[in-house]
């Protein structure tokens, strides 16, 4: 009984313990057997039934006291049996819900009492007592896996020490139990053996097959199929050994197209879903969470409707098998599988008799039947009717050999059936391969082999629409298969006469089984055949389907081997074919894994220098060229790049780069530019002097070569030395010349890219200025593809660092297109555009234009972009904009008046904030910042009067300040504060409008959000649902569709990890979301729901007035602060900006932003920061900062001042510029957050300016409550 229970019964958990018996036929029959056994026990073996168990069997019962009759003491809910053991304990005791039983007689009674609940009782009992024998007879009788379970052993145990009588009973009991056990086992064995047991090989085949369904495009059935473990044990299992014990073969993660990833366990008993095994070691994830299916396909069918639907189209082949042929086919397939996995058709045809014999031999052992489904599948090929046809043909041929009398007929018909399919295919190209149509047609043709001649003839007629090439190619392939080398060569040569670039021919070759033959030929000794075959493969491998087929057939391995051949023709042809085939990742990996990279690199070793070559040298060059071609293809994989480098490819490439032959240079440069994405290559390109050659080749007249050269320079010119080298090699001029090739977009993209990267060096910019590159670049701002635009704008951005260039850009009318580009969506482009606009905006006249074009608003809106890079560079760009915008105003005179009266849009106020902050950092000469909290408050004041008052207050405080703060600034400050006050008022009104609109939109989207949240498992609304949503949200259907598309994309973009379910994404979204992006969950809307000004804030600001307090000043020992001083405007406008949006909203926005950018900056500058902090010992120490700031979090006022020395034009205008002090009452915590967020913006801006001479400071905030402020000195780019 024990053995049967542990082995045969199916438990939910494999480990012994608390598992449950599953409801399976096996278990049910087991239970019934046991039940019967128990039931009859007391009547059959009355003596043994009285034997008292060593330990009682206890379980949770559903029986109640009322179920028991006489012979029992019933007192309330508890029941005791009259029957007792010799110590007087009752043999049965029921204290609901648990029951304990001491003997078989009681057990029998219970079973009888339980009537219809009996099965349940037995089950509960067994579940509670996994090894009942041990309890009945004592632990030494426990069923131990693997131990000798013979009765004799048990008998011996029994004899140890018991009294004679009891021993006898015990022995009898044991024997009875053993009998039961054997009986159970043999019964369940029958049941189990009826089921399909999976084997590792079968699973593997299934998986391979499923993988082949993971192709791209419309037809795909699955997204991906992956093992959780790459390691395969020798027995074919991929599970850890301790799970293999339970028969588990492997774990899979299969992603269907329509549902969440399925975590699947394949075990010998079948396949089922598990608890989500990703990594080994999670104990409970191994548990079964679904029914057991007999194979993967059945499971997938039930779990993924999409799969079921699509896979059914493949199923015909399984059904189509005739019962009589079944075994035969399988065996045949088996033989192939073992012998020559890839190509066996022609082999089979050549050696039909041998094959037949093999089949017979194979037939004998049998028992391979279980492999059947998967293998059949495999033979169906890649979901293509062609392959199926082929396969069928081969099968049929084999069959035909066995039935000699119908040989010829069948051969013919097989051919017909083969040909019929592609014909249809060609007439109906759009049909999904393996589609239903193919199935029908196919099953017909398969039965055809039993039919008579006429029908086949009719068939031929019906297939007249086949392209004639098809027949000819089929014939040629026949001769390829069946000819000696002479015939083969003739066939190969005449096959080359077909237009192999044409897809029909390519596919025809594949469909008639030509690929297998061609690849087989590569394995022969015949050089001519190999050459001929490679020549064809080389051509047809331009087709992606053929490429994959070649890789699948193992052609790459052979070709890699051929690379070793002494024959140069062979070498270069093989290399060229590899170059064609290795266009996809798996192929590239295959090449690498079979040592192809090394061999290809060896091919490069030739002497191409001399212009005049002998015939033989020309061959060498050709070999090297093809080697380079192949490397080029391969170098698209990162690991291949590494492999090329390790194989010593770089010096060889460098040598080949000096070759005078253009066709050699293209692949070489192509490889180099591909590899230049790796740092090691960039260094090598620089140090091996390849830049010079690249530049030289820029001057050739081959566009492709020029393109690759430019692209290589583009990738390498990140490095300053490289840029210098390009200049020194006079590579800039040809680059500029190439700009005229406006038709060739790829070339243009590469060229502009190179120019962009080169112009990072100012010397280069000067050169470009000489060459009038910018004029051309500005001309390229319109009507270009994005990849060109990114580079052009990047180049302009770099160029605009020079004042002269800024003017040039303006004069050429470049500002408008630049500003227009701000509305784009390409993030790389946006980064560059904002940079360029920012650079341009430093010029006053440019600014006017930008302003007119509404560019500043666009920039501001980009601050809300998801991409931190975009945000950063937008912020950077806003800075000079505001600066100059203000200048404009000031120049026109009446600052206050003009502001009040006019045009200035509220957006500016907002921008001022960012701008000022950033500006301070970008200001080259500035090394101190006065950052005054007071300004915040000031701005909130509605009345200028109040402003004055507060500033007076402030002034009072400031009198007590250390003398190194310059007093001059006060008056100017005063005025600006006034301005700010006015501006603020206006700004608030305007912002309300915009926010209102935004709010309205969000309200509209709420039902959609709710829907999304509700359907987070499958966020794809059906059309009906969309219509309903559109109605409820008052949007149009298109809007709804777009909203969902956007939402899903946002989810994907924000939560970057692949393989996440939608639900998880949605869950994580709010955590991940950056910047001002909309929150997704419905509730989170509320954070931004307040409209208008924050009443709380108003209140606060009013209250603040009465008790202005000055808290602290951060000061810097300022040897450097020779100070023209800091303009109060900076601080004032900074704070002012924050008035406009509702504070809470804003603060949360900035907060998020801050945290993100902080991370960003900290990572980037981590090392630098540490160093700089030490370096800037003059700055206030961290501890000091902490002290300073802690009060702020407790809502007390805080004020800190950095002293700044500014030399910008703005401050120089402040005639009375000096040190200014302001005081502030930072009662509202949000203010603090704002300031810190602002500082983070600053940081970010600095992070972007990686080098330079000036210094600046940044404050880093670590948590929402300011816990730490760090002052960091960062060198800045010299901007002016």
């Amino acid at each position: 009984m024990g053995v049967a229970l542990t082995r045969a019964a199916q438990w939910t958990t494999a480990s012994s313990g608390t598992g449950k018996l599953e409801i399976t036929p096996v278990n049910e029959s087991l239970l019934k057997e046991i039940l019967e056994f128990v039931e009859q026990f007391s009547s059959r073996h009355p003596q043994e039934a009285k034997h008292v168990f060593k330990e009682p069997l206890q379980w949770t019962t559903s029986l109640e006291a009322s179920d028991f009759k006489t012979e029992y003491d019933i007192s309330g809910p508890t029941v005791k049996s009259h029957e007792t053991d010799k110590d007087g304990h009752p043999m049965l005791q029921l204290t609901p819900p648990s029951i304990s039983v001491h003997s078989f007689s009681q057990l029998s009674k219970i079973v009888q009492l339980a009537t219809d609940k009996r099965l349940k009782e037995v089950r509960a009992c067994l579940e509670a007592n996994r090894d009942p024998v041990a309890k009945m007879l004592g632990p030494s009788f426990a069923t131990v896996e693997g131990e000798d379970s013979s009765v004799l052993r048990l008998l011996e145990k029994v004899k140890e020490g018991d009294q004679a009588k009891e021993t006898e009973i015990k022995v009898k009991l044991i024997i009875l139990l053993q009998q039961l056990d054997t009986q159970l086992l043999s019964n369940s064995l029958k049941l189990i053996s009826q089921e399909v047991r999976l084997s590792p090989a079968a699973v593997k085949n299934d998986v391979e097959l499923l993988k082949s369904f993971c192709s791209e495009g419309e037809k795909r059935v699955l997204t991906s199929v992956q093992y959780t473990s790459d390691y395969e044990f020798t027995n074919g299992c991929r599970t850890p050994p301790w799970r293999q014990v339970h028969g588990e073969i492997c774990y899979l993660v299969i992603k269907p197209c329509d549902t969440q990833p399925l975590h699947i366990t394949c075990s010998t008993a079948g396949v089922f879903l598990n608890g989500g095994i990703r990594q080994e070691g999670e104990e409970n994830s191994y548990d079964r969470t679904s029914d057991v299916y007999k194979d993967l396909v059945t499971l997938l069918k039930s779990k993924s409707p999409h799969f079921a639907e699509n896979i059914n189209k493949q199923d015909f082949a399984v059904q189509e098998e005739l019962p009589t042929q079944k075994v035969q086919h399988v065996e045949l397939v088996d033989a192939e599988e073992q012998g020559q996995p890839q190509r066996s058709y022609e082999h089979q045809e050549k050696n039909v008799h041998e094959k037949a014999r093999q089949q017979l031999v194979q037939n004998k052992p049998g028992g391979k039947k279980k492999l059947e489904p998967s293998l059949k599948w495999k033979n169906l090929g890649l979901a293509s009717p062609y392959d199926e046809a082929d396969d069928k043909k081969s099968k049929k041929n084999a069959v035909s050999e066995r039935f000699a009398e119908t040989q010829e007929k069948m051969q013919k018909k097989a051919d017909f059936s083969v040909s019929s399919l592609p014909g249809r295919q060609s007439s109906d190209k759009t049909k999904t391969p393996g589609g239903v149509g193919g199935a029908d047609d196919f099953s017909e043709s398969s039965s055809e082999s039993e039919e008579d001649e006429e029908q086949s003839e009719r068939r031929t007629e019906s297939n007249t629409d086949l392209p004639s090439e098809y027949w000819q190619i089929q014939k040629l392939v026949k001769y390829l298969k069946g000819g000696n080398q002479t015939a083969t060569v003739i066939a190969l040569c005449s096959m080359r006469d077909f237009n192999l670039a044409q897809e029909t021919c390519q596919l025809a070759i594949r469909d008639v089984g030509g690929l297998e033959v061609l690849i087989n030929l590569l394995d022969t000794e015949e050089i001519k055949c190999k050459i001929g075959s490679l020549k064809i493969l080389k051509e047809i491998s331009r087709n992606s389907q053929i490429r994959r087929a070649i890789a699948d057939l193992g052609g790459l391995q052979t070709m890699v081997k051929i690379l070793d051949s002494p024959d140069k023709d062979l070498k270069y042809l093989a290399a060229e074919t590899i170059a064609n085939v290795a266009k996809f990742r798996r192929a590239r990996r295959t090449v690498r894994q079979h040592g192809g990279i090394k061999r290809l690199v060896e091919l490069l070793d030739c002497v191409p220098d001399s212009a005049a070559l002998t015939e033989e040298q020309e061959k060498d060059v050709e070999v090297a060229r093809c080697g380079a071609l192949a490397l080029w293809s391969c170098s698209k994989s990162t690991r291949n790049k590494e492999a090329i480098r390790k194989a010593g490819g770089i010096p060889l490439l460098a040598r080949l780069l000096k070759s005078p032959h253009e066709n050699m240079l293209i692949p070489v440069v192509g490889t180099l530019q591909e590899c230049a994405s790796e740092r090691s290559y960039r260094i090598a390109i620089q140090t091996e002097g390849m830049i010079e050659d690249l530049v030289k080749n820029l001057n050739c007249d081959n566009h492709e070569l020029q393109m690759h050269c430019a692209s290589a320079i583009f990738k390498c010119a990140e490095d300053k030395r490289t840029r210098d080298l390009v200049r020194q090699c006079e590579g800039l001029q040809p680059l500029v010349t190439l700009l005229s090739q406006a038709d060739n977009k790829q070339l243009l993209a590469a060229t502009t890219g190179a120019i962009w990267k080169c112009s990072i060096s100012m010397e280069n910019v000067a050169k470009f200025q000489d060459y009038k590159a910018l004029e051309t670049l500005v001309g390229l701002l319109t009507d270009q593809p994005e990849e060109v635009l990114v580079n052009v704008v990047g180049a302009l951005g770099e160029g605009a660092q020079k004042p002269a260039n800024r003017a040039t850009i303006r004069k050429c009318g470049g500002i408008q297109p630049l500003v227009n580009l701000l509305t784009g969506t390409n993030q790389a482009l946006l980064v560059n555009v904002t940079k360029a606009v920012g650079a341009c905006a430093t010029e006053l006249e440019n600014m006017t234009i930008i302003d007119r074009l509404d560019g500043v608003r666009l920039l501001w809106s980009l601050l809300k972009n998801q991409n931190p890079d975009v945000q950063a560079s937008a912020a950077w760009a806003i800075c000079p904009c505001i600066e100059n915008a203000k200048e404009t105003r000031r120049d026109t005179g009446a600052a206050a008046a003009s502001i009040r009266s006019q045009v200035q849009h509220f957006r500016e106020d907002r921008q001022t904030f960012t701008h000022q902050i950033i500006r301070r950092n970008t200001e080259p000469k500035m090394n101190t910042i006065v950052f005054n909290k007071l300004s915040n408050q000031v701005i909130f004041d509605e009345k200028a009067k109040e402003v004055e008052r507060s500033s007076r207050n402030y002034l009072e405080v400031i009198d007590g300040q250390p003398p190194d703060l310059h007093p001059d600034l006060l008056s100017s400050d005063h005025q600006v504060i006034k301005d700010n006050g006015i501006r603020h008022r206006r700004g608030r009104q305007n912002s309300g409008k915009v926010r209102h609109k935004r709010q309205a939109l969000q309200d509209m989207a709420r039902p959609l959000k709710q829907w999304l949240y509700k359907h987070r498992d499958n966020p794809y609304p059906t059309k009906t649902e969309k219509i309903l949503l559109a109605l409820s949200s008052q949007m149009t259907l298109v809007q709804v569709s777009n909203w969902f598309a956007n939402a899903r994309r946002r989810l994907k973009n924000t939560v970057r990890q692949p393989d996440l379910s939608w639900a998880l994404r949605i869950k994580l979204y709010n955590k991940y979301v950056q910047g001002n992006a909309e929150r997704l969950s419905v509730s989170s809307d509320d954070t931004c729901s307040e409209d208008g000004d924050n009443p709380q804030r108003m209140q606060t600001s009013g209250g603040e007035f009465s008790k202005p307090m000055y808290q602290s000043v951060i000061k810097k020992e300022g040897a450097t602060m020779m100070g023209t001083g800091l303009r109060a405007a900076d601080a004032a406008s900074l704070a002012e900006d924050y008035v406009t949006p509702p504070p809470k909203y804003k603060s949360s926005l900035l907060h998020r932003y801050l945290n993100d950018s902080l991370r960003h900056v900290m990572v980037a500058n981590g090392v630098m920061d540490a160093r700089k902090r030490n370096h800037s010992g003059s700055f206030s120490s961290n501890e000091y900062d902490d002290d300073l700031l802690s009060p702020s979090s407790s809502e007390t006022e805080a004020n800190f001042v950095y002293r700044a020395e500014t030399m910008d034009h703005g401050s120089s205008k402040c005639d009375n510029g000096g040190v200014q002090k302001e005081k502030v009452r930072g009662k509202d915590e949000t203010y603090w957050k704002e300031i810190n967020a602002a500082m983070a913006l600053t940081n970010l801006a600095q992070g972007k300016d990686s080098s330079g001479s000036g210094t600046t400071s940044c404050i880093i905030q670590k948590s929402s409550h300011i816990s730490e402020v760090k002052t960091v000195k960062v060198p800045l780019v010299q901007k002016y």
Partner: protein
Amino acid sequence: MAEMSAMNRKLIQNLAETLSKQVKHFNKTEAECLIRLFNGLLGDQSDRRVGNGLDRGKFRNILHNTFGMTDDMIMDRVFRAFDKDNDSYVSVKEWIEGLSIFLRGTLDEKIKYCFDVYDLNGDGYISREEMFHMLKNSLIRQPTEEDPDEGIKDLVEITLKKMDHDHDSRLSYADFEKAVRDENLLLEAFGTCLPDAKNLALELSLGHDAHVFLSWTRGRSPANEEDHKVELSRQLGEKLGLCILVSAPGGAKLGKLWVGR
């Protein structure tokens, strides 16, 4: 004996010199080597008569063993191609001249040679029938086919379609030449009649331990031993069954046909 060998040697050298001047692709040393080889092959034909040479059987042996040819008919034709004067013997001169094309011929020479081989009746055309004749063994007979010749006929048609540029249903030399120039693989379109590219060199030694490699890979000049890049045919000598001791004056071993390295 010694005098004879000396005389012989002298003779051979003279002959080699003259022949190497007549034949493009061999220098004197190589020619001398080949003459010795020729003599060696003649072997025990002690009654070596002038003008006599390798007879058909011996020559076919060489082709078969050394160059891996199997087709009787083609071998016959190759013999004919060597035997320019049709006297059923390949003389020394014919041997050297033949080998010069056979081993080192330029493409032109080889085209001519192959055409000669394939033009069975020597009428300047390769006719349909000739092709059929030459290709008849090229397909594996499938017992399933009704007409075993059907495939061959088809193949002939394919070949004609491919090579017969003037559409007169036969291949003229011009046709053949053009086809081969377009596609070098077609050089031996109707059967192997040139040495296998697998055997790349024949290493000969003149004694004195100065090895000479006789290579017939295109464009490769005879190299010295130092030049290890020459691939050799290791099987060659074995296949020939040659290990000829050439008597030197004084009975010393003059040299040995080197086989392999």
